């Protein structure tokens, strides 16, 4: 892992819970896409292999026998055991953890994030599908089988961040079909507490020369969009053209799902993070907040490429 890219062609990672049904598929899909999975962990399954990937009893054992600390880990173990697995990876020196598991108690998530912060590691998720740099590598179930992933994710100039795993692919596929393509897409997870929020990932996208614009998928609930809006107003963009007076921001287009929830306070849909707790968190309020921070909000997914082109055009002519 180097610089501002979370993953590149040399990134090595492991899969914790690799012998699970979902993890076996994920391993196959990632290998087919060209990712470097150097091992897997399932306690008690040492000596087996999953699509040629050796399985160990623990992360420490894996590090010892493979002879290197992996850059990352994809964690797919059941919710009861996730905290233990993530602590195990972080304490072994792993710096990038993608947590696929959903329904993890919030306290466990807070504990994992706290340890990651202490140890200088980064968590993506939980309840997410991972990261992809189209044509380079992917880490996690994002996009599904390699052939389907290649169809939906063409290398290009737009960064995608999404609270919904499935919608990451839906949006990326729309961008690819429109010829814009995707630089990096990150399924950040939909829970009330997640390892990396939009605002925390923005600096990486802004430092990336391949990225020209950002699309985010949002839902009602939570304060993550407010955090992004604040971040945009308080921080200068990293893409400063030579000689320019003010920093140039990456244009952002947002798609907001769940507008109907405004009419149903107190109801919970989709992710745990979408429980509407007050006026400040309604879809309408959130849209207003995003727009006042200069983020364009699309009504339908199919409008996203045109809105992005419009924004990119105005950046080019500014």
């Amino acid at each position, binding site marked *: 892992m180097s610089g501002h890219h979370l993953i590149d062609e040399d990134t090595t990672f492991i899969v914790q819970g690799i012998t699970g049904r979902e993890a076996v598929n994920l391993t196959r899909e990632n290998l087919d896409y060209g990712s470097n999975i150097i091992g897997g962990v399932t306690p008690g399954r040492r000596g087996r292999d999953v699509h040629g990937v050796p399985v160990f009893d623990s992360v420490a054992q894996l590090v010892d026998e493979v002879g290197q600390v992996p850059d990352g880990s994809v964690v797919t173990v059941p919710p009861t055991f996730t905290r233990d697995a993530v602590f195990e990876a972080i304490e072994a020196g792993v710096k990038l953890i993608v947590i696929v598991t959903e329904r993890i108690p919030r306290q466990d998530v807070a504990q994992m994030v706290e340890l990651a912060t202490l140890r200088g590691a980064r968590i993506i998720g939980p309840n997410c599908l991972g990261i992809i740099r189209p044509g380079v590598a992917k880490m996690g179930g994002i996009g599904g089988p390699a052939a389907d992933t290649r*169809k939906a994710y063409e290398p290009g100039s737009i960064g995608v961040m999404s609270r919904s795993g*499935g919608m990451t692919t*839906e949006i990326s596929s729309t961008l690819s079909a429109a010829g814009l393509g995707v630089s990096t897409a990150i399924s950040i997870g939909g829970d009330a507490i997640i390892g990396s929020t939009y605002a925390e990932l923005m600096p990486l996208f802004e430092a990336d020369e391949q990225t020209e614009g950002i699309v985010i998928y949002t839902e009602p609930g939570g304060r993550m969009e407010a955090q992004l809006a604040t971040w945009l107003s308080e921080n200068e963009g990293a893409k400063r053209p030579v000689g320019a007076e003010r920093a140039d921001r990456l244009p952002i287009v947002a798609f907001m799902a769940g507008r*109907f929830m405004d009419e149903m306070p107190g109801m919970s849909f*989709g992710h*745990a993070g979408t429980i509407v707790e007050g006026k400040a968190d309604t879809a309408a309020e959130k849209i207003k907040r995003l727009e006042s921070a200069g983020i364009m909000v699309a009504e*339908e997914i*199919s409008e996203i490429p045109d809105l992005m082109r419009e924004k990119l055009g105005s950046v080019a002519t500014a």
Partner: protein
Amino acid sequence: MRFYEYESRRILAREGIPLSKHGFAQSAEQAKQIAADIGGPVVIKSQVLTGGRMKAGGVKFADTPEEAEAHARDILQLEIGGHMPRGVLVDARAAIKQEYYAGVIYDGFRKLPTYVFSDMGGIDIEEVAETHPDRIGRGHFSTILPHMDFRAKDVIASLGITGSELGRLTPILSNLARLFLKYDMTLAEINPLAQLEDGTFVAVDAHMDMENEGRPRQRELLEELGVGDEETRAAREPTEFEIKGEQIDSVDHRGVAGNVTEFDGNLGLVIGAGGGSLTLFDAVRRHGGKPANYCEIGGNPSVSKAANLTKLVHIVARGVIKACLELGYDPAEKIAVFRIPGAWEEEGFKILEKYGVEYYDRSVSMHEAARRAVEKV
């Protein structure tokens, strides 16, 4: 999952937080007996999972056990916000010198739990935040280091509270933080936390929410309180349809399949992933359709799980078709449209083709698929 006030009080008592003398009653006679045991004036409070009890007439004052009995009889029959009370709480009424607020919640920004403390208790903390933001103290605490009292002390002292008050309030706020972590709460709140004329403190009302994800490991507490697995404690009572969805989901942990919600409408939605469901729900409504229910399938649920859920929705590919056939429906008629935009699309289309179900790939947008479905119904 929300707790009743009487349950929240039992949790506070379990963790050493002082309470006013009280009892829980499910009949007027019981209420009378509790009032007599307490001796002196009491408050009768409806035990419902909704706010606005006072306004709705669910809180009444009594000076004698006979009065307490009469009030309890009324309140036990009073529906508040669509909820019938579980019972009444009979609480000793003492002279209060000052009311405080003590709460613990998660801060999603900082990804840590935070104390919220105020010397303006007895009213909604949201209101205090708006009118007197300087009267609220906050402070985060660790979820991996042992909880230390000084963190709570700093928050209380930040409001200028000192002397014996500081010494008495610190363990209360500390214990509230400890029980918040111990019982997987997402909210633990004492309001008001009352200082009596003799200087001591008691919790007069409490509100707690346990995270559903934490319930499996909180069996001991839930059993002690008599909360069964079937009690969802949602904002509105679940319909029979929703309860069945929950049962199917709990059979195995692989993938989410569930979160079934019923509406008045004519179009059933079975949707892969939560984000897709929110998007499609908006799209169906935008084209004039009325969603009848909602069900998401995420991760990689087993075929039987998907099949069981679809059976319930009466209308992912193998599961849905299998369910239609088992119920004796022609899939081509019962399923308005089926859209597979990505993973495993070819396998899915083969199955749908075989049964004559109209299907789309990624080239037809979610909004377009929704429009066609609405037109067909």
